[in-house]
Structure formats: C-alpha cells, structure tokens
C-alpha cells in the first residue's frame, strides 16, 4: 500500500520533538549594576570595609543593604532617569551619593530585549558638616558587571 510508512512516521516524530525546543530564557548579561568598592582614605590602595553600612535608594526609600560590614557592593541605577540618588549610612552618619549619567539603550536579543549602558558617569557626594565619605573616583562608563566602577575613600 504505502511504500515507506516507517520512514514517514520516524520523520513525523522527529519533527514533533524538534518543535518542542524552548528559546525563551535570557542567558546574556543584561543591564549592569554600579559596582562600588570601599578604600582607606589614608592609605588609598588598601580596601577597607565599612562598619554598619546601610544603603537606601531615594526617593523610594527602599533599603538595599542594612547594617552590613562590606568592602564591595553593587547597586542598580535608575534606567528611567539620568540621575540616581542613594543614602549611605555608616554608624548613623548619613551621606547622600548622586550618580549622574547618560543612558544608552542597546538591543541584545528578542528574548532578552534591551539593556542600558551608562556613559559620562559622574558620582559625587553631597557635602554636609560631617561626611564620612572623604573622596569618590569613578570610571566614565558602566558597560558590564565585572570591574569596580566607583571607588569610595573613607
């Protein structure tokens, strides 16, 4: 009757399984965080952890870190605006840090969509009567999560 029924059934089953493969999981690196490392102001090559560090995102007042003892942190920047402010508290001393930047939306893929990279980055601390943060230096661009973008001396 049919000349090659077996081969056809095998082909059908093969096609059926090939159709099942998913491609909706995004595995590529997306919008990078701002990586911050804390250094000793008196001996500027040495990493120095901050005591009782609390970080609050402004103006939404989300507490991102609470009373931690860390020498390195990563923060999400606001991709809807060209500025993000954080409140850095160390042993009840509040300092406000301002990130100013230009946003650049980069297409990655259908599954991942777009990511933002940050250019012309400028990080500063708003001066007050008693800043625990003595100095800040930063890279001008944030394109990946890998390196320290911002160095805070205290």
């Amino acid at each position, binding site marked *: 009757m049919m000349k090659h029924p077996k081969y056809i059934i095998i082909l059908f089953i093969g096609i059926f399984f090939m159709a099942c493969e998913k491609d909706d999981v995004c595995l590529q690196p997306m919008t990078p965080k701002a990586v911050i490392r804390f250094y000793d102001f008196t001996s500027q090559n040495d990493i120095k952890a901050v005591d009782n560090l609390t970080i609050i995102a402004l103006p939404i007042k989300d507490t991102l870190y609470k009373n931690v003892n860390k020498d390195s942190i990563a923060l999400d920047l606001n991709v809807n605006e060209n500025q993000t402010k954080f409140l850095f508290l160390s042993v009840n001393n509040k300092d406000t840090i301002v990130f100013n930047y230009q946003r650049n*939306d980069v*297409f990655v893929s*259908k599954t991942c*969509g777009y990511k933002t990279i940050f250019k012309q980055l400028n990080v500063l601390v708003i001066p007050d009567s008693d800043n625990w943060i003595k100095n800040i230096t930063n890279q001008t661009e944030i394109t990946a999560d890998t390196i320290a973008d911002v160095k805070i001396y205290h």
Partner: protein
Amino acid sequence: MLRYTINILFIFWSLSSFSQKQINDTLIKNDSIHILKPFNVRIGFDLGNFIDGKLNNNPKTAFFIDSNIYKNYFLCLEVGSNNNDFNNSVYHFQTKGNYLKLGVDYNIYDNWPGMDNQISMGFHYGYSNFTGTLVGYKINQPSNTFPPTENIVNKEFKNISGKWFEITSKLQVEVLRHIYLGYSISLKYLLSAKRTNEYEVPFIPGFYKVNSNRNFGFGMQYYISYRFGKD
C-alpha cells in the same frame, strides 16, 4: 502540548482509514479502472491558520495550487499573508507580510484504481517579504530597585525578507468527489538573517516562529481543497 498530542493521534487515525479503504477497492472491477490524468489542477485553502487567525484576531490567509505534472510528481505553489504580535514584556515586535512557497511534492502513496489520495514528501523554497514594527521595549534589568518603564518606539522596518527551505510531508484525502481534506507538516531551515543590531524577528510570514538559537522551524497546516478537471 495537548494540541500536538491530538495531531499525533490524527496521523495514526489517517493511516488506519486508508487500510479500511483498501478492502473496498479490491471489489472494483477491471473495466472501471481510471488513472488520474496529468495536469489536474487543485486549489486549496489553509483552514487551520484561517480559524486560528479569526480566534486570535490575527489574520492569516493562505492558498495553494498544485498540479500533477509528471507521474507522481506535483508542482505546488502557495501564497499567503500572516500577521503576528510578539510581546514577552521586555520586547514587543509586530510582523506583517506576505509569502510565497514553490516546490515539488512526490506522492509515495500507491493509489488503487479509482482513488486519488496523496501522501507526499516535498521540497519547497519559501520567500517572504514583510514589515516589522518595534512597538516598544522595557529595559531588562535583572533585579530592579527602580522598575523600568516601557519605552514606546513604534519604529517600522520595511522590506525585510525571509528565505528558507522546507521538507514537507503532506497528506490529502479525497473525502467527497473532487473535495480533499488534508494537512502538512514541515521542517524548515531558515537561510536569511534573523537579527540586526536594532531588532530580531520572532516570526516570519510562512515560516512562523523563529528560534533564536537555531535555524530550524516547524509548521503545520490544515487544508481544504478542490480539484478541477476530469477523473
């Protein structure tokens, strides 16, 4: 998943219906033998995609025309029009366009005299011309302190072309005199680019869903068709 399970059942169901028919045909007397003459033209309509399009408010239309040009070889041309709306919350892309498929089907089914059924293996080339619209996107930020808002872009990319080859297994059964019901399953291989540095096409008219990681695609169509010409 249920849809594919039903499709598989349909394949086995169709095989069993042929074996039934064979018994009846053995009763046909020699003097009533007729063999289908070449150059009979059959026109078909893609029923499955049409209904699917109506239900999802996403118009899809396709017609095909085929003709038995030589022995068991059929020349087949299909034209169609598809719309698609892709939105996975970070990327919203719409596709709208037409396509054309041209190829040869070889009927491997041995018809008994008086029958004109088709189980064919075919090789087709597909070409599509379409417009893609990047409706909008939302920045992908793995953890977000400040939830990204959607950016509306509405940027059109005109005259994108899609090219592919496909191996098609098609089944058509004459259910009433001159009227056929059938379906085809295609394994497709995309030849054209699916990505630029501004967009990636999630769908190509006639090719259907485009997989980011590989060039293979899959298609299934249900047809109703009518054959012109004498038996």
